């Protein structure tokens, strides 16, 4: 599985979405991506990519696309 596929799977599993619903998805745009959903997503992103995301980046992880940008900052090819 590629990093992009792993990343998509995290969103699809956590937020019960299909792949075509991911582009453009923003924090709080759906009920499951609220503050608690965000916490779970962040932990799973860290575990999946074996990184530790700094708090400012947790807070600015505001969309599906922004998340990929942040992961690249941590050396994840996506």
């Amino acid at each position, binding site marked *: 599985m590629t990093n992009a596929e792993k990343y998509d799977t995290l969103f699809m599993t956590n937020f019960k979405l299909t792949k075509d619903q991911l582009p453009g998805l923003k924090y709080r745009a759906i009920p499951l991506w609220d503050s608690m959903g965000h*916490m779970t997503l962040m932990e799973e992103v860290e575990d999946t990519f074996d990184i530790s995301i700094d708090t400012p980046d947790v807070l600015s992880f505001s969309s599906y696309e922004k998340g990929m940008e942040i992961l690249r900052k941590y050396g994840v090819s996506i």
Partner: protein
Amino acid sequence: MCPFSYTPACLTDPLTQSNCYIIAHDKQALLIDPNNAPLIRSYLEAQHLLLEYVLLTHEHCDHMAGLNELRQAYKVQVIASKACSDGIQSTTLNMSRIMESYLYFKSKGSLRVSYPKFTCLAADITFDNSYLFTWYGHLFRCLPAAGHTPGSTCIIMDSALLFSGDYFIPGEEVITRLPGGSDELYEQVGKKALRALPAPIRTYPGHGESFLLTQEVKQTYGLY
């Protein structure tokens, strides 16, 4: 036995608003949820109390952030469900790993603090099913109620006081979406345990003020 009017001391952590309850007998003390060690130590010292036992309602860090320091300062025995004991040893399950961000979101962006992640050693006494414990004539019944977390436990003292942890927090629904939480466990285990609690009973929640838990209040939580 403790009279129904007995009121435990309540210490509220200013950061997380979690409650620690202290019960004294002469110069000995037992506490439930060691939320903030400096706060607790100040109280114990002012009251000339020696801490003997710590009981945990669940494994989240806001309810046991003071445990490590208290264990260093006092020769205490820690009592918790096995799942809670496992949870306090994990930065994920004890939530300290995400607490900094959690506090930020919960405060709607007004609270930005450093909250280093941490773990604790296992509890000294653990249980899988209900656990009975006496302390200077007081009877404590620890009743596992998984759902909010795997290790969530309700503690009843002298059949008169209920320490409910993060269940029955005034004005809040039961949360099962934080680390370790499970809707399925809450439906299958937690609700069953909460339904069986005696009512009315004076209740001391993990956050907020004490109140009288009645059957009517239980019903507002879907516990029929």
